[in-house]
């Protein structure tokens, strides 16, 4: 049982390949965050709109995204839509699944943040002649993003880790996909996944630190 001999040298040879995969991982995570943020802001506006249909739609999205497994969300984007004749590539399905998840969680974070911003802020903007959308965009949203900054950063880390679920829909170019392929060819399971884990860790940490640096530059009040 303990006859397994580590072969780090062989595994490390694959490092450049894995780093290429890491780049794809980062790319999906960043893209999913950017799109997720935009959709989350739209969902937040829907929920504030007072329109039953719009706010119902947004609430349903948030509820489903937060209360079903992320894996199912990605499956649905790939196989679920596939049953309706919409065939997305593994890359796109993974992206769609994570965007769905991100948008739901972020919208919920935004709702919490909005509670901390008094209505009088909007009122002050409106009384200067701003439209309600202008007051939201120029006054409420910047404050909301600041208050929700920490949970947004957490979601970014979560998005990075969620990309590993892509293998289940045939994704083979991201870090987990590449690692899985290497493993299938060599059976150096422990080495490859240990290296991949370290890379995930480094990316996640780097993103957190970058976010913190960004925050301290941006939020000077």
């Amino acid at each position, binding site marked *: 049982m303990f006859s397994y001999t580590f072969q780090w040298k062989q595994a490390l040879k694959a490092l450049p390949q894995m780093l290429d995969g890491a780049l794809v991982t980062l790319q999906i995570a960043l893209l999913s965050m950017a799109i997720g943020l935009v959709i989350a802001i739209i969902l937040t506006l829907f929920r504030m709109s007072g329109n039953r249909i719009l706010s119902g739609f947004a609430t349903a999205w948030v509820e489903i995204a937060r209360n079903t497994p992320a894996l199912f969300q990605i499956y649905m984007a790939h196989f679920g839509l596939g049953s309706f004749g919409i065939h997305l590539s593994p890359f796109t399905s993974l992206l769609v699944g994570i965007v769905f998840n991100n948008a739901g969680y972020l919208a919920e974070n935004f709702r919490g943040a909005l509670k901390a911003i*008094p209505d*009088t*802020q909007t*009122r*002050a*903007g*409106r*009384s*200067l*002649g*701003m*439209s309600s959308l*202008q007051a939201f965009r*120029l*006054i409420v949203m*910047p*404050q909301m993003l*600041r208050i929700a900054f920490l949970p947004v950063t957490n979601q970014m880390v979560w998005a990075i880790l969620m990309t590993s679920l892509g293998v289940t829909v045939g994704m083979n170019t991201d870090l987990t996909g590449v690692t899985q392929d290497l493993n299938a060819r060599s059976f150096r399971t422990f080495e490859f996944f240990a290296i991949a884990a370290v890379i995930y860790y480094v990316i996640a940490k780097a993103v957190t630190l970058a976010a913190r640096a960004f925050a301290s530059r941006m*939020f*000077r*009040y």
Partner: protein
Amino acid sequence: MIEIENVRKSFGELEVLKGINLTVDKGEVLTVIGGSGSGKSTLLTCINGLEPIDAGRIVIDGTDVHAKSTNLNKLRQKVGIVFQQWNAFPHLTVLENVMLAPRKVLGLSKAEAEAIAVRQLTHVGLAEKLSVYPNRMSGGQQQRMAIARALAMSPEYMLFDEVTSALDPMLVGEVLDTLRMLASEGMTMICVTHEMKFAREVSDRVAFFHQGVMAEIAPPEQLFDAPQHAETKKFLAATH
């Protein structure tokens, strides 16, 4: 000219304005006094259309504020309002607070908006504070910033709702001085206030509100020295 005709307004069961009739001429300074809950704030928010009314009309320079066809965003550029709570935008510097609406609402260039903002902030004595964030300033300074922010839109009318009530007594004077300056410059103003001395000094007329009714309106000497209405007498006795 602001014409208020038989305006009624309720919140649920509670009728807060019970048929207000009032005309404010260009260049006039009107102060509004009255007990808590008498409808003073509500009247101001109805004047610039932040609150709808149930009956009557408010007409500003020929524009019916509450008509469906009225562009309220446009109208509000003409009617500035400053509240008891100054509502500084915390994420913007003092200069940015004042520049925001001229840029985004009036569509001025950055340089134009900045010139206006600097002028208004200098006017209210905040020239030294341009790049400071509001939370680094006293309440009085933040309130003066809020006044500059409203003035930067070049309004023709200004509404002030107890702008000194949330301030430390020490800081009341500097804000009242700002209002006095505006009054002396000919700004048309409606000031809700509890500062009787100030009201007497700056007003052309003083209106006394009681339970949703404008019980009395008169020049300050008359209203303060020879009030006609029993409730006015009671109120003034209680505040002196």
